[in-house]
Every structure is written in structure tokens, then in C-alpha cells.
């Protein structure tokens, strides 16, 4: 082994040590970054996990020690809270009422919104811009501003406290945003398609049903998820129009139980888990559509 070779080898050894040290230094420098991110993630996830774990515990256990004790054996998991919650009168039907409210309300408003959006996107008429500016404005109007007169309308029509009345209310409140969003999407479709269809003699009915609706399906799909979960999670509208009726949906019933139980409310965790399992499942399985819907809703408020 010549002297020259030895120095080279030492040099590479030193260089490797330097890169290794550099690397370590870089990693150490980035350590605060990871720590901050992990703290944020923990604060945003742990409370939910804690409640889900609690929902599988017996009430005396919940009152004796926090949820973290279940992380170590004996876990003591049980479905007692679920049985207890579902046995309370009105809880099980309220889940059904939530479904009966949510699905028709979603279908009704999106059907009407799609048709209206087509008019705003592909027809010219006097007052179109003014109408549309009003719709943009209505998107942020607090529904509190409408509750009393809408209640009066429902009383006048003798449908106050019924499920169809809530379909109508939700549809009215949801429409401005949906018309806005679908009109922007429809307006972005290529003009040539509609023009060539017109040349071929297709009327507006055909252009709407055969071209506009199929091409808008991706936007409608995101909206369906967004609107559906919005109504499923709604409290204020349901509380106002169904608060004292026998058809209270799940959110209203849970809220009523939370505010009426002094001590021992802990078993209501089971109800909360049931209520949020549907939105979480939708989020997990339809993530792309869900996030797209939420992002599109950034202007809604």
C-alpha cells in the first residue's frame, strides 16, 4: 500500500464523517420542526380518540379515571354506553329522522340549483347580473335573519314542525351557494359543445339534460357530499323548526340530553360517536370529493 493510497483513504474517511455530522446537524436543526408538527397533530387528534375510547367504557370507570387508563390492561371495554343511549326514548328514531330529513333536502335543493345555474350560465337576460349579485350576497346572510318570517310562513301553511317544512327551509338556505358554484362550473364548460348542439337543432331541454348535467356530475358529486353532511350536522335549523316536534333529528336529541343531564352525562359519548361516524366514514372513503367540496365552500361562510 503506497503512502498516497493511505492519505486518500483517510481523506474519504474524514469526508464521510463530515457528511455524517452534517446530516446529524441538519436533522437536529429540523427537530423543532417535527416537534411542532407532532404537537399540533396530537392536539387535533387526541381529544377525538379520547372520546371514542371513553364511549366503550362503563360509566363508573369513566367517573373513576380518565380515558388514558384504557391504554393499559385491563381495558374494560364494553358496549354499555351504546346500549344505554339507544334505549333512551327517542334516540333510535331520531337517527332515522336525520336520514329522512337529510336525503330529500339534499336531492331537492341540488335538483333546483342545477336548473337555475344553467339559466345563469348559458342564457342572457336583462337583470341577470343583478340577480346573480343578489345570490352572491345571499350566500353570507346569516340564517338567523330569516328564522322568524320562515316560521310564520310555515305556520301559515300549517306545516310547522313537520319534516317536509325542514326540507324546504334547508333548500332555501342552501340554494344561493349551490347556484353560485354550479353556475361557475357550468359556465366553464366549452362553449363549442353547446353551440354545435344548438346547430344540430337541440333545444335547451336537450342541451341541459344531455350535455350540461352529465358534464357537471363531478361538481354535483362534491356538492352532494358537502350539502348532505352540512344538513346531517346541522343544529340551528333543526332546533328552530323541529325543536319541540316529535321528529327531532339526532343532533337536536343529543343536544337536549347534554343540556338536561347534570352529572352522569358521560355515556352520551356513545351518541356523539354514532353521530360523527357517518361524516368520518365519508371523509375517509371519499376524501378527494370531500376536500374538493370543502375547498369550493371557502367563499360560503
Amino acid at each position, binding site marked *: 500500500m503506497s503512502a498516497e493510497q493511505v492519505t486518500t483513504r483517510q481523506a474519504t474517511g474524514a469526508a464521510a464523517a463530515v457528511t455524517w455530522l452534517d446530516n446529524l446537524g441538519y436533522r437536529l436543526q429540523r427537530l423543532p420542526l417535527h416537534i411542532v408538527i407532532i404537537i399540533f397533530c396530537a392536539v*387535533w387528534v387526541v381529544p377525538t380518540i379520547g372520546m371514542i375510547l371513553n364511549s366503550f367504557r362503563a360509566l363508573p370507570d369513566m367517573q373513576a379515571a380518565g380515558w388514558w387508563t384504557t391504554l393499559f390492561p385491563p381495558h374494560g371495554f364494553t358496549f354499555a354506553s351504546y346500549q344505554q343511549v339507544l334505549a333512551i326514548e327517542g334516540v333510535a328514531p331520531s337517527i332515522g329522522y336525520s336520514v329522512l330529513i337529510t336525503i330529500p333536502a339534499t336531492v*331537492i335543493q341540488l335538483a333546483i340549483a342545477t336548473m337555475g345555474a344553467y339559466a345563469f350560465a348559458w342564457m342572457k337576460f336583462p337583470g341577470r347580473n343583478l340577480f346573480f349579485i343578489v345570490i352572491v350576497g345571499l350566500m353570507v*346572510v346569516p340564517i338567523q335573519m330569516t328564522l322568524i318570517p320562515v316560521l310564520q310562513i310555515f305556520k301559515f301553511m300549517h306545516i310547522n314542525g313537520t319534516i317536509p317544512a325542514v326540507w324546504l327551509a334547508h333548500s332555501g338556505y342552501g340554494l344561493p351557494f349551490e347556484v353560485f358554484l354550479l353556475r361557475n362550473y357550468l359556465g366553464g364548460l366549452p362553449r363549442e359543445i353547446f353551440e354545435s348542439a344548438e346547430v344540430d337543432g337541440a333545444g335547451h331541454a336537450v342541451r341541459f339534460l344531455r350535455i350540461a348535467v352529465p358534464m357537471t356530475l363531478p361538481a354535483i358529486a362534491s356538492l352532494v357530499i358537502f350539502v348532505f353532511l352540512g344538513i346531517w350536522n346541522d343544529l340551528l335549523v333543526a332546533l328552530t323548526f323541529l325543536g319541540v316536534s316529535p321528529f327531532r333529528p339526532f343532533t337536536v336529541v343529543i343536544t337536549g340530553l347534554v343540556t338536561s343531564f347534570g352529572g352522569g352525562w358521560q355515556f352520551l359519548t356513545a351518541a356523539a360517536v354514532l353521530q360523527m361516524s357517518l361524516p368520518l366514514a365519508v371523509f375517509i372513503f371519499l376524501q378527494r370529493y370531500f376536500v374538493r367540496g370543502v375547498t369550493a365552500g371557502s367563499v360560503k361562510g
Partner: protein
Amino acid sequence: VAGITPDQVITAVVAVVGVPLVLLGYIILGEQVIERIPDSVQSWIRPYFWALPAVGFATIFMVYPLIRTVFISFRNNADTDWIGWANYQYFFTFPDTLTSLRNSLLWLVFYTFFAVFFGLIIAILVDRVRYETLAKIAVFLPVPISAVAASIIWKFMFDYQPPGAPQTGTLNALLSVAHHDPVAWLVNSTTNNAALIFVGIWTATGFCMVIISASLKAISSEVLEAARIDGANEFQIVRLVVTPLLWPTITVVGTTMIINALKTFDIVYVMTNGAYNTDVIATQMFFQLQHNHNGRAAAVGVVLFLAIVPLLVVNIRRFQQQEEQR
């Protein structure tokens, strides 16, 4: 399921199938009629025919009630007489309603600031690590959860037992580890508004993060590279390059958060029911409505609306600018 009558199920099914069918019939039959009338009238009448259902709904459930609420706010609770500004006078002088006004301002400032700030920080930080997607899912998780469920989640975090008893609430358990007396977060009037506002921030941060992150990805890496070559460190890049480029997005998200802050209802209603001075404008309005104080409730609604009007104007301006660019 017990308690649900077959009638209700049938009505729902009829609505789900029937409403789209009725609209289909409306379109097809309507077009048949419209196509038979002279061209000049046709192009005039058709758009209104198409826009009618949507515009009609919006008019009945939003425009008309809006105007009517303004009227009601100047009338007595039984809606029999004009009483001038009395309902507003009540709102701006009665201690309970003033508390709700103060709390709404607290929500407006702190909820908006921290939701946007945390959203921005997280979006920028996770952009630099390999587990970005996972971290984003974690922070976004509360978004699909209803405010009702989120309130129950946080009731456990804030749970309070008297000193000496086992602390089952997560925060008070942490305090007891640090040999600190437990705090009644939701009852103590120095902590309860902060606690409620934090729950709001917790549910909104993921939303802000997703929107800000999307526009962060749109910033070209060449800009950042150029700043690095010029010798800027990471903090300078975030402060002087990234944040200014994100500013338009931050204002959009901020506007949405302000509107949400003013409309806040669910979290306060479920967690404290407005007790211990945690009332906000929206819960105050609901309580007035529950007590059949229609005039007062309407006045509270009008105040809430007036607070939102500037943002409404901003939104319309922004929309008009976007239209010019189309």
C-alpha cells in the same frame, strides 16, 4: 325503526324521486310551450322560466324573510304595534345582551386570528416534511365532525372534578400531574370564553390549512430558490416571500372565518347553553325567539346582519373582479 311511520318513509321516497321528476316535466313541457311562441318573445321569456324555481326559493326563504325581519324588529313582540327603536335600545343597554355582544367580538378577533394563523403555520410546516399527507389528515379530522360531537369531545377535555377527586378531564389531569389545582374551565368566567373559542378554532383550523396549503403549492419553487440563493434563511423566506404571496388567500379565508365567528351558535349552545356569561349574538337571538320575543329576536338578527354587511360587500366586489377576468 321504531317511532318512524311508513307514511314518513313514503313521503321521503316520493320527494326524492318526485321532485327531480316534476322538474324534468317542468323543463320538457315548458320548453314544448316556449318553442311554439314567436322567437322574439321566446328568448325573453325562456331565461326567467328556467331561473324561476331557484330564484323563487331564494326569494321566499331568504329575500322576503330578510326584509320582513327588519320590519319585525321595529314592532312589539305580539306584532300588533310599531314601537320604534325600543328593541334595539334593549339590545344595546341590557347587560345580558351586551355580554353577548362583547363575546361575539372576542370570537371575531381570537377565533379568526388563530384559526387562520394556525392554518398558515401548519400548511407551511408540513410542506417541509415527508409525512405531510398524514399530518394534514390529522389536523383536518375535526372538519367533518359536527359541532355537537366536537362539543362533547371537548366537554371531556375540560371536565372538572373538585380538588381531591380523580380528575377524569384530560386538561385537569395534566394540571394535577403538575400539582396545580383543577380549573373549572367552562364555569370560570376568566377561562370559559377562551375555552369555547379554542373549540371553535380546533374545528376550523383544518379548513384554513387545506385552502392555504393549496395556494402554497401553487407558488413556483423558482421564486423560493432565488430567495435562497440570495441568502435568505427559512424564516425570512416565510415572512418576506411566502406570506405576501399567500395574502390574497389569507384574506379570503379570513373573511370566511369572520362570518363564521359572527354566526357561532352550536358550540356555545351545546357546551354551556350560554350560561356563565358565554352567550354570543346568535345564541342570544335564539333565546329571545324561544321566549316568543319576536321583536327583540329580530333586532338581534338585524344587528348580526349589519355586522356581516361589510363582508358581503367585499365578497361581491371580489366576485365582480373575478367576472372581469373570465
